[in-house]
């Protein structure tokens, strides 16, 4: 029997180099999203709402219609897109600065309204694009350009666990946290993303997946060490798993 290509770029991911730093997990997250758009057959119906962060150019990498949202406002823009085109597959892709800081109100309210959209949340504990400033998700003790001596609970507060907050909202249907630091976790991440996307396809409401991701550049670690940091520092504080799953119950509860 002849040789088979068992792993290749998904159709939805455009064949071009990305602008990301070596070892940046945005690339992995992009691929997972692209694979699912293909596998679930929604690529031709998809409308991506891109956010402002290193991943703003996701719209150059995915072969789907897209709109660029102002920083933090992707869930509001997505609400507008969905209101206009209920039959389309609408999703946002947001960083932690974008979603957990400036965009806190928008994501919570979109989730609580039970908007029938999916949110892919890439948590790398810093503002990547602007040079590694502190994010709401920055870990205690982590040094960034705006907390140069390390984040301090007293002064800057505790890292925010978004998935837990979203899961606590009556309007949300599915909320889970995964990590992109190793193959097992990447596989799990895809399962969660599939569920979140499924929510929307079945018109069962808001699906949310947080992806713990590396930003080697701003962590000032090489990619391999950055992946290690996710395991040793991030996962202990940001536990992986499904925090809410009301998908089988017919939607938000």
């Amino acid at each position: 029997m002849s040789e088979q290509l068992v792993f290749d770029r998904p159709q939805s991911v455009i064949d071009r180099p990305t602008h990301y730093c070596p070892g940046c997990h945005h690339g992995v997250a992009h691929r997972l999203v692209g694979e699912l758009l293909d596998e679930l057959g929604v690529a031709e119906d998809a409308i991506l709402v891109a956010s402002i962060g290193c991943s703003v150019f996701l719209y150059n990498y995915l072969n789907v219609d897209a709109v660029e949202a102002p920083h933090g406002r992707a869930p509001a823009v997505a609400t507008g897109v969905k209101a206009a085109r209920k039959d389309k597959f609408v999703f946002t892709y947001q960083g932690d600065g974008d979603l957990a800081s400036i965009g806190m109100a928008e994501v919570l309210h979109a989730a609580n309204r039970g908007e029938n959209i999916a949110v892919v949340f890439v948590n790398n504990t810093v503002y990547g694009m602007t040079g590694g400033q502190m994010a709401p998700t920055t870990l205690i003790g982590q040094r960034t350009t705006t907390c140069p001596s390390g984040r301090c609970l007293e002064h800057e507060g505790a890292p925010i666990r978004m998935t837990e907050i979203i899961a606590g909202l009556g309007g949300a249907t599915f909320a889970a946290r995964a990590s992109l630091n190793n193959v097992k976790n990447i596989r799990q991440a895809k399962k969660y993303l599939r569920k979140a996307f499924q929510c929307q396809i079945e018109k069962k409401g808001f699906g949310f997946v947080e992806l713990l991701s590396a930003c080697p550049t701003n962590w000032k670690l090489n990619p391999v060490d950055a992946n290690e940091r996710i395991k040793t520092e991030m996962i202990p504080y940001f536990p992986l798993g499904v925090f809410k799953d009301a998908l089988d119950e017919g939607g938000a509860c």
Partner: protein
Amino acid sequence: MARYLDAIIAGFGGQGVMLIGNLLAYAGMKDGLNVTYIPVYGPEMRGGTANCTVVLSEEEIGSPIIHSPVSLIIMNRPSLDKFQPRLKDGGLNIINSSLIDMDLADANRVKCIAVPCNEIADKLGNTRMANMVALGAYIQATGIMELQPVIDSLKDVLSERYHKLIPANTEALNAGAEVAAKA
């Protein structure tokens, strides 16, 4: 004529072009000149090439941005493609010949000096100092100032934790200057 020089320094993100731009301008200031340095980045911070413009002048500096400079330090191929055509006729082009095919140098129109920066740096024990090799060659070729003010400025421009590398950097600067002196 009054001392005046402007330069665009360009390369990959990790090649340290900003650092030598800074060093050049700082040394110029210490040497009594008016100076400006301005970096140009790609998408917010990430990817692509980086370049900066340095102006050194005895007079007040108006524009810190120069479209057609009198000199270039070119660390990689895309930068050569982009900036060489803009170099003023008869201008100086320091080219990192470790990564760039010198056939591409526009040697008829401008003065090109091939400096195998990466190789020299490698030989000195650290590829990352290719930028200093290029700057050494540049200082020598322009004669805008002595090498000493540049060497003296290393301690002010490098962050504390790299101070241990000052001797190595000095060596790289000198090595570059030597290449240019022979060119």
